[in-house]
């Protein structure tokens, strides 16, 4: 089963990291990715660009309308996500607990249902 680990936080939190904490988080993140690669459970990890770069698309009267944002009111935003493929929810939760950001922000775990394959 594939799971998405959504890593949440906010600018205030990310900016509050002293350089050594930031270095530690980056190092531990790389180590976790390497561990998952070695175990054959790693599908990929992505960082989500800042909210300032978010666009929203709607189609109104058949024409696409693009607006900036949304600049969510929420206290925490999606900062990055990992996709893993592992045996059980228990294992997914175990991996989520190893995400360094779980020590600072929070990690949401969602089972993934594959919508479409890249090739038919």
């Amino acid at each position: 089963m594939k799971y998405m680990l959504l890593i949440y936080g906010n600018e205030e939190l990310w900016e509050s990291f002293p350089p050594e904490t930031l270095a530690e988080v980056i190092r531990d993140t790389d180590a976790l990715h390497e561990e998952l690669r070695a175990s054959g459970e790693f599908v990929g990890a992505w960082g989500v660009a800042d909210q300032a770069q978010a666009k929203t698309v709607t189609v109104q009267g058949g024409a696409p309308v693009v607006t900036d944002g949304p600049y969510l009111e929420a206290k925490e935003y999606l900062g990055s996500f990992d996709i893993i493929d592992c045996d059980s929810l228990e294992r997914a939760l175990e991996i989520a607990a190893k995400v360094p950001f779980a020590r600072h922000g929070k990690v949401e775990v969602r089972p993934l249902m594959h919508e479409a394959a890249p090739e038919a």
Partner: protein
Amino acid sequence: MIREPRVEDLLRRLAPQVLGALVRRYGHFDASEDAVQEALLAASVQWPREGRPDNPRAWLVTVASRRLTDHLRSEQSRRRREDATAARAPADATVAPAPGEAPATDRDDTLALLFLCCHPALTPPSQIALTLRAVGGLTTAEIARAFLVPEATMAQRISRAKQKVKAAGSTFDLPPPAERGERLAAVLHVLYLVFNEGYVATSGPDLRRADLTGEAVRLTRAVHRMLPDDGEVAGLLALMLLTEARRSARTGPDGALVPLAEQDRSRWDRRMIAEGTELVTRTLATTSRLGPYQIQAAIAAVHDEASSADDTDWPQVAALYRLLDRVAPNPMVTLNRAVAVAMTSGPQAGLDLLAPLDDDARMAGHHRLAAVRAHLLEMAGDTAGARAAYRAAAAGTTSLPERRYLTGRAAGLSGAR
């Protein structure tokens, strides 16, 4: 004129025989498996261009052996390994069998390989991946595509599985008779999972990936040829055929799930049904050990023989589920039995059977319980209850087509009072 089998099919059929021959001669399951993959690749490129060799099997064994010895020679501990290899190689190791003559050990080799790939030290996903590659002859890329993961992820999974098998100290021999039954059950379970992955596609947009169901049937056929007297092997093959027969009726034109009761039965594959029914009938008549696959195949046969849901011999289905519940007690079996009982004794009788499952830890929050309850409540005319149960089931499933189907059922009841 006899048409030659396609190169691809021939290679896939020969793959476990060639691997078996290599492992038997040299040991080194891990390195042999890589060498066979390289030989298969070389054949798939060379044969169509330069013609097929007179003895394809011997050609593959020779090429794979050369790759393996090259590999072993290049290893650091060259001297030591070569000695060990030479000591282990039997005198006839370099003699190829006459064309068309399959050595007597092929059968045992393929079985031993299956036992090795379905080793209890491995998790089911690893057993599946290794079986498809080492016995099924699929490439890592093909397996990765079937399971919708990157090729590197699958390659790593397979390589780790091989290391684990090695670390478990397993030898390339058939398990001792005392363990044989349990180990064969593990092999059958893996084949069943491969079939199911293709059929239900827990993580796919389309409900079935035909290549995986086809592969499961092919491998189970091979096991059945090797162990024709084993009732459970025959039962599993029959179950697959009788299920696969309904494939084209299982989805509507829009790709949505069509439940058994609403399927257009004229689209069922009659030839497959005939083969599966014949197989399960013969097995049930001769078996000394009635197992869950045989009973499930018998249930599938009863469904496949009926011209409509109403025409189905529901008392027979209910009786078979009761038998299955005794042979292999499992809350999933109770769920299915509840449906059959509802058809013979009314929805309330079915709902009564479901009640104890609410407290069963194995079923806690399982969407199938909510889905069956929804169906029975709908039969009983409890629209509001059915709608709520369909919604709960839709929230619980991790299969996209199933969620669409369940949400659709809930929506269909929304207008009703």
